[in-house]
């Protein structure tokens, strides 16, 4: 149990997806202009990551890993080069389901996501979650915890940036810095802050 908790903290803070690993930055920057949209994105990310990482784990272990077809008399078969296509297919399906659910039950959140919800399919953070899961050979429980932890870390970061940028709407910035430029500088400062969590990893 403590191992899983440690993994959760590690995924959420030490290896924070947008701030330390540069993953999922496009939506991170584009949707953090308002705090409520940022919060919605964070929740969606946590949901999608928490579902797709364990799902992709099951697909990888039962179908793609070297030797997975041993029961069918094909112990030599290694389909792991197909994992990119398989993972992205699972993610695309999950995102479309999410889009339909949002459209049906939360139309205002759906409207505020706009073009970026389909782009959640190509959210690097989500695919990277599955790729890291394979690279670090997690178990099923670990991959679920890792997915949720990364999602929570992303939600935290995007929520904070959204809150800062909402306040910043009243600031008098140089023209060229307004919008994207200041968002990058803020992200850099937050990234400096999160870099100090690396110290936490040593004491965990």
């Amino acid at each position, binding site marked *: 149990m403590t191992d899983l908790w440690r993994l959760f903290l590690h995924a959420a803070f030490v290896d924070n997806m947008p701030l330390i690993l540069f993953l999922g930055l496009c939506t991170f920057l*584009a949707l953090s202009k308002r705090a409520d949209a940022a919060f919605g994105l964070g929740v969606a990310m946590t949901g999608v990551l928490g579902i797709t990482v364990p799902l992709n784990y099951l697909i990888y272990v039962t179908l793609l890993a070297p030797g997975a077809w041993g029961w069918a008399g094909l112990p030599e078969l290694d389909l792991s080069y197909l994992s990119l296509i398989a993972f992205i297919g699972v993610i695309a399906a999950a995102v479309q389901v999410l889009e339909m659910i949002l459209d049906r039950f939360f139309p205002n959140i759906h409207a505020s996501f706009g073009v970026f919800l*389909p782009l959640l399919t190509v959210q690097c953070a989500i695919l990277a979650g599955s*790729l890291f899961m394979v690279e670090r050979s997690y178990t099923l429980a670990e991959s679920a915890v890792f997915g949720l932890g990364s999602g929570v870390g992303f939600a935290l970061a995007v929520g904070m940036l959204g809150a800062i940028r909402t306040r910043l709407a009243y600031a008098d910035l140089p023209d060229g810095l307004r919008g994207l430029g200041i968002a990058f500088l803020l992200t850099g400062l937050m990234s400096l802050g999160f870099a100090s969590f690396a110290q936490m990893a040593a004491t965990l």
Partner: protein
Amino acid sequence: MATKSEIWRVLTDPLVRQNPVTLQILGICSALAVTTTLATAVTMSISLTVVLTLAAGLISTIRRHIPETVRLIVQIVIVASLVIVIDQLLKAYFAEVSRALSVYVGLITTNCLVLGRTEAYARHHAPVPAMIDAFGNGLGYSLVLVLIGALRELFGKGELFGYEMLPLADAGGWFEPLSLMLLAPSAFFLLGFLVWAVRSWRPEQVEAPDYTPPGRAEAAE
């Protein structure tokens, strides 16, 4: 058929005026992650430009046959297949660079630049303009990557492409490497300043303010 000047416009617009990274907020993740050295930045730029151009051509060719509802999955599968080919090629011929890029080659699949361009342009245009647009965007992306990669490697290690440019203080030279340049935050700062510089040069890219203080609004008029 598009005229020559129109093709030229589609090709050169994404370089500065519509740059994918600094204006359209597309493909930023990899732009920051692979720019610690110039060699990885260049490899990534070439891989991405090739994938983007081919994907735009393919998707635009079959654009009338893709049903609207499943178009995302079809596009992604096409892009993923191209990325697998590139990944295997890199592993076979440039093993070292491929290791340095780690998962980020696979992540070209989910580079929002690729899907963003196919969604926004290739889906509605004939193959040739679509490929030109994709190539232009690939070049715009490469421009930013190479610039940031060069700055980070030059000031972080005193090298370019692994060759010494600034003699290091450790080896009897005068240059003290800024190791912060190799860490995550400096990539954000550099890109932030780059955006600032581009927008000061081209004021039409400046975003409209969300809110104007009352006193200031009158003063401006």
